[in-house]
């Protein structure tokens, strides 16, 4: 079946660098996407979301880009800090009567001081 996937399982960066985490989705019916951050031993925490009628959305130090042509989603983190070290998941929602999310496997971001 169709699923959400990630290109890089682990991303290592230096503090201060910009980080880019990628996600591929294959379901053309998906109309909403979310990025979650999960720190060790904790539950996923909402970072930012985007609807399919947009191609870019910005938050505090984070930007999500959506390319529907190639079914690609990315999360950009500016000036990465050690506190950004975590696993990042993308998730997609296929618009239906009852809302469920399909999660990717996650990318671990390691930030070195």
């Amino acid at each position, binding site marked *: 079946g169709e699923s959400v996937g990630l290109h890089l399982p682990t991303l290592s960066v230096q503090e201060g660098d910009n980080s880019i985490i990628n996600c591929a989705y294959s379901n053309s019916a998906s109309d909403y996407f979310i990025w979650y951050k999960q720190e060790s031993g904790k*539950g996923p925490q*909402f970072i930012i979301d985007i609807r399919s009628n947009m191609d870019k959305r910005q938050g505090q130090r984070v930007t999500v880009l959506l390319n529907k042509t190639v079914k690609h989603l990315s999360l950009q983190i500016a000036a990465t800090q050690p506190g950004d070290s975590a696993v990042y998941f993308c998730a997609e929602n296929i618009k239906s009567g*009852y809302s469920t999310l399909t999660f990717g496997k996650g990318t671990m971001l390691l930030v070195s001081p």
Partner: protein
Amino acid sequence: NAGVTQTPKFRVLKTGQSMTLLCAQDMNHEYMYWYRQDPGMGLRLIHYSVGEGTTAKGEVPDGYNVSRLKKQNFLLGLESAAPSQTSVYFCASKDEMIETYHQETQYFGPGTRLLVL
């Protein structure tokens, strides 16, 4: 607000034993979800509920049962635990589908670590 809480935080079971995981939310959310997370994998949906008294199967429902007798609580039951059910279980909740931007955002609890021997 406490948000989404889960009890217990950690539990060890022997094969064949039963237990119930409790999820509670104080945000008056209509939708609640149970996921399991295994090493190197994303979150997989077990069961979910779209309102008090309703439940539905997710991606991996076998071996689990759920109940939503009260709007704020969502219980996940294991009738006869198996080692394959060793995992971290997360509960989440979401507001009903209203015309606001964050309507699909699910809010997660801290998780329950379950070890089945």
